[in-house]
């Protein structure tokens, strides 16, 4: 192992850089992520409307990726707080696909079971279950399953809203289903196999 240079010591890098995590995340992200190009300018965190609720700003998270801090990154709530508003994406001087990197990190955290709060992963999974069953989103099923599981305290204040949505015909009681559900299932099953081998 090569000796650490003075610059590396000054930069506070305790060990030799291991870029395998950074590359793994980059490769798993849709499109060309440009993640390796991050210059740590912090424009992302400064542009983020939800940064106040994040464990780490996107800039810090990317520094942690570069440092190979797998568990810390996958435990961070940052990807789950990201609202996909793409403010950081259009401002990033290096054109990093920040929001898509956040999607990748969510998927990795679910697989590694390292998320701290299960609310968001469960919501995504419930939504996906509905889509895989009906081919369409099913709001009433999604909302009732999710709220009973995670937000019992919120239910009393949610009732008038849910009632309003149903009586005004904005939430259907029964799910809508696409015609060629078999075709969609075949496509998704094949896609899942491909996901495992890629």
């Amino acid at each position, binding site marked *: 192992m090569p000796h650490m240079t003075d610059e590396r010591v000054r930069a506070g890098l305790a060990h030799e850089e291991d870029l395998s995590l950074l590359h793994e995340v980059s490769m*798993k*992200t*849709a*499109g*060309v992520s440009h993640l390796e190009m991050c210059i740590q300018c912090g424009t992302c965190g400064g542009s983020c*409307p*939800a940064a106040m*609720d994040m464990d780490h700003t996107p800039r810090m998270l990317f520094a942690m990726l570069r440092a190979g801090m797998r568990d810390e990154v996958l435990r961070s709530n940052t990807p*789950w*707080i990201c*609202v*996909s*508003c*793409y*403010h950081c*994406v*259009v401002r990033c001087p290096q054109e990093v696909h920040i929001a*898509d990197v956040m*999607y*990748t990190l969510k*998927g990795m955290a679910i697989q590694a079971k390292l998320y701290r709060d299960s*609310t*968001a992963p469960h*919501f*995504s999974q419930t*939504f*996906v279950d509905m*889509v895989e069953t009906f*081919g*369409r*989103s099913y*709001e009433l099923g999604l909302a009732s399953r*999710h709220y009973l599981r*995670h*937000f019992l*305290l*919120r239910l*009393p*204040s*949610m009732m*008038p*809203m849910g009632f*309003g949505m149903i009586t*005004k*015909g*904005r939430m259907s009681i029964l799910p*809508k289903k*696409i015609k060629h559900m078999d*075709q*969609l299932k*075949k*496509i*998704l*099953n*094949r*896609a*899942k196999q*491909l*996901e495992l081998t*890629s």
Partner: protein
Amino acid sequence: MNKYLLYPGCSMESSAKAYMESLNAIMEPLDLHFEEIADWNCCGATEYLGINLIPAYSLIARNLALASKQMNGTRTVVAPCSACYLNLAKADYYMQERPSLGEKVNEALEAGGLQYKPGTLDVRHLIDILVYDIGLDTIRSKVTHPLHGLKIVPYMGCMLPRPDYQNRWSDHEHPTELDDLLRALGADVIDYPLTTSCCGGHMTQIGPETAFELIRRLVADADERGAHLMATVCPMCQMNIDAYQNEMNHFFDTHYHMPILFFTQLMGLAFGKEPDELGIGVELVSSRNALANIGAEVPITQEPTAKRKKDEGLPMPRRWTKREAGKEAVK
């Protein structure tokens, strides 16, 4: 004749059906013709992408594949929902930017007897074709009941102007397409710096404190600027600001009443359509008083209230408030 393929998206049939009704009402005056993509499926919203990659993109691409089979004198797919628009545009773009993704997605599509060559279609949002294809002059010429005196903040939301893979919008942070369109209808358009701030997206479901703060900013600023109502181009924005405004008010102990309507509903009013043809009245924050400014009469609908008697008797779960949220966080 202006002919397009239409990808309606799930919410147009449920929570945002007022958007669909009002779109149907303005199609005839604008000579717009839509052919719905047969047997389209959900785009996965912002949820599927966070679980895995190839299934998520294959789900989106099935719609593109079906649409490309249906091309008949047009290659433009119109999505009225900003999230659907972004997902369709994103899949088309990334399948080109990263050919290996395109190949895998096509391999998955093949299992269902479909295929899609990226770049075949042109994915566009509804307001894009109204402003740039139909044109503001045509729209202006159809106005019979100008919205003079109605103070509107134009709320574009985030997923429409960003990331903007095809450079369609006047600006990424402060686009003016919606301002221009509302002005063409005769409305008093208020400059709204938060026009592309986020409404919270799915955070109303998974992290309500985060979402309520984002909703509060938007509603409070519109209120301070003296707006009668907000205009939106996205079912998700409409849902968050309309259906969660009551809960947001409880959370911060505020009393905002800021209706939000789809821009197509306002176009319908300006074209002389009746409110009940345009799905006006199904919003949870009633637009009745706001629309009285232009003399439009909104059918009376009961507003849901969350009034609760004083705490007495057995302990029951309380309403979700900022205090409760603090306690939850400690737990």
